[in-house]
């Protein structure tokens, strides 16, 4: 027993053991497959990029051709390597030849040799970006926590740059560019700079590059490194991880459960994709953010608290198994309890403090009120103040700024500024509050935290017993049933041949940083 809440260590240990069983089951069920998106990612990592005259990305063209020819089950790298061994100048030229040949080129015994320098180049580019980030961060004083995380979502990358640089100057430490609403369901990644998204801006490699350059350019002026965030979820999860690794994104929303439950993406497809995307994020030094906050926005935040914690245990294990280290695992949760509820703030504090004590070294991502934001902007500003105070008092790591105009419109320039000002003021004004707080051992907050932990244990038992796929089919999470063989993208799941090859996965699995700890 330890911490301010004196949570039972044995129960936390039991939850971790159950999560390990769950993750083991996921591995056993997914490792015999690959997916179209995983193979497209291999192509991107090899340097294949661009679109054809119909705006279809080249990686999609190649993978479609390989799938039609029945050759995807060996892994795309085998065929790129083979095309190079018989004369293609580089992976892009090999891709062109594969498309022309309808996916059928003879396998060359020395495909690995042909491709090796390009695998090396991809790996080096990612590691160089990681080193560059570390160098930049180290050049400035330690950052104040929680990191203030602002969202831009104009739909136009050039307008996003204006909003993002304004937010960064005002004090935002992380800038997330929200994606266009339908993007998670696209089975390809759009190309180039984009100016017309809905509810957000398309995640494209060029858009990543433009925003990265704009934030880097601010660094000398503001004396801070600004973290860039995007969304590596949906049907193109690992491709976006690869693009982010190439353009030095720092954080990625990365959660298969979210896509399964809230976007009806096929569970098998997205859990396979998640594993590869997390491998990439691990090597790139990216901090992932998981999406447990969503359980709270769609259902009752008091009832769902144990489900959030259960999901955090599972996400932690799946992340570690994919090579992510603890400092990279930004488990999500949210401040979503009805502000009219008696002692609701005490429950929020209990849940946030419990997350902090159960995952002491994880960069917890704390999400703002959205569900009970009403259009009364003054009340909304007050709710956000309580949210910031709770965040500071419970030492959260990444604080997504709440907008007083949540539920009204995508934030105006001054909405974001007001949020940053509020958070900065409270963060300074309550700087050492967390050090001063002790909770009554028999009080409401301690009792609530224990109740949530015990509830999470019960959910994890059910999930461990049924397996994650069984539990998803049974509707254990968010009362939504998601069978293993239904949902979007299932047709993109391909059983691997016994001699399947993915040179990147092989390179990263050989050095499983942080895995099995």
């Amino acid at each position, binding site marked *: 027993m330890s911490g301010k809440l004196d949570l039972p260590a044995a129960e936390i240990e039991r939850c971790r053991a159950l999560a390990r069983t769950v993750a083991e089951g996921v591995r056993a069920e997914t490792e015999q497959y690959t997916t179209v998106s995983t193979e497209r990612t291999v192509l991107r990592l090899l340097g294949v990029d661009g679109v054809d005259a119909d705006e279809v990305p080249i990686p999609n063209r190649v993978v479609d051709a390989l799938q039609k020819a029945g050759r995807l089950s060996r892994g795309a790298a085998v065929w790129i390597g083979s095309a190079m061994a018989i004369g293609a100048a580089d992976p892009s030229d090999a891709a062109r030849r594969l498309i022309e040949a309808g996916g059928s080129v003879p396998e060359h015994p020395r495909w690995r040799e042909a491709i090796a320098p390009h695998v090396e180049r991809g790996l080096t580019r990612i590691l160089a970006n990681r080193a560059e980030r570390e160098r930049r961060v180290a050049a400035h004083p330690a950052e104040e926590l929680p990191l203030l995380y602002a969202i831009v979502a104009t739909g136009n990358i050039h307008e996003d740059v204006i909003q993002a640089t304004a937010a960064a100057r005002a004090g935002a430490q992380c800038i997330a560019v929200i994606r266009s609403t339908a993007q998670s369901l696209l089975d390809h990644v759009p190309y180039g700079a984009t100016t017309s998204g809905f509810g957000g801006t398309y995640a494209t490699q060029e858009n990543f590059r433009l925003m990265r350059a704009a934030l880097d350019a601010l660094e000398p002026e503001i004396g801070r490194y600004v973290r860039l965030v995007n969304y590596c979820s949906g049907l193109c999860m690992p491709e976006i991880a690869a693009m982010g690794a190439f353009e030095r994104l720092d954080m990625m929303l990365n959660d298969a459960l979210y896509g399964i439950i809230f976007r009806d993406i096929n569970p098998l497809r997205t859990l396979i994709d998640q594993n590869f995307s997390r491998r990439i994020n691990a090597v790139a030094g990216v901090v992932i953010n998981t999406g447990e906050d969503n359980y709270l926005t*769609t259902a009752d935040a008091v009832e769902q608290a144990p489900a959030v914690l259960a999901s955090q245990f599972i996400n932690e294990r799946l992340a570690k198994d994919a090579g992510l280290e603890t400092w990279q695992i930004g488990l999500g949760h949210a401040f979503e309890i009805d502000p009219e509820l008696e002692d609701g703030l005490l429950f929020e504090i209990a849940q946030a403090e419990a997350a902090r004590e159960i995952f002491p070294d994880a960069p917890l991502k704390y999400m703002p009120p959205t569900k009970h934001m009403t259009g009364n902007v003054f009340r909304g500003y007050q709710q956000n103040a309580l949210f910031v105070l709770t965040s500071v008092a419970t030492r959260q790591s990444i604080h997504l700024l709440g907008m007083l105009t949540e539920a009204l419109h995508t934030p105006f320039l001054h909405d974001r*500024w007001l949020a940053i000002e509020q958070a900065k003021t409270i963060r300074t004004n309550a700087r050492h509050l967390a050090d001063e707080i002790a909770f009554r051992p028999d009080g409401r907050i301690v009792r609530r935290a224990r109740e949530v932990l015990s509830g999470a244990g019960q959910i994890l038992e059910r999930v461990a017993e049924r397996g994650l796929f069984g539990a998803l089919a049974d509707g254990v999470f968010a009362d939504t049933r998601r069978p293993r063989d239904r949902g979007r993208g299932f047709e993109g799941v391909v059983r691997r041949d016994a001699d399947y090859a993915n040179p990147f996965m092989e390179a990263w699995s050989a050095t499983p940083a942080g895995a099995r700890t």
Partner: protein
Amino acid sequence: MERDARRGAHVTSPRTVRPYGDKKNDGAVQLSFTLPVAKSAAAVEAAKRYVSKMGVREPYVTLAEAIAPEFTYFVVYGRATHDVDLSAIAVEETPSATLDREAIDAEIARRFGRRLIVLGCALESDAHTVGLDAIFNMKGFAGDYGLERYHGFDARNLGAQVPTAEVARQVRVAGADAVLVSATVTQNEIHIRHMTDLVDMLEAERLRDRVVLVAGGARVDHALAKELGYDAGFGPGTKPSRVAAFLLEEISRRHGVGALA
């Protein structure tokens, strides 16, 4: 006023109102906005002049903050000079019978002898289900149970990002009595386009007359919904029982079955 006079009706005397701060007709308003100019004395003067052009006298700039190099945020108080005549306003109020869940269930059983089939969805690119869930989910919203809890409704939540063609297909297959459309993403007025597309689609498929069509969302109100060809619109904060009561009355009207005794 003039129109009333011409009609020769008994003219209602104008009843003008103006914002109220602490005394009648003081016209007190607060405004907040950003001008895309660097903060300076000239920027503050520009804000005052802008507000004056809006018909606000004695503009008092209480905050002028440089929120970005080329942007200044203002909070301005002042006295509005404009007024409006309440007697000239004719607005259709959103229908709101006030029946509770038990009464609605009982009336559906009495009038129809079957469950009414209600579909709910967010259209096309709109991936948000918060509003939809508030109305549909068993749990409901603000202590008011959702449609799934009603015995009288066969409530089917189709979720978000449903193509309009799919909604039309479901209406036909299910023989739906009503469709509730939730519009959350309103950027670039995209919700208007999707909402209109659905009406067009239902009309093209000769289904429009068979269903009661209801819209809801943060930027939706009854007038807008009517204008777009819907039967009703409900704004933010609407409780499920209010929608349920409307559905009962409107579906009854369509079928010519007895109103409340």
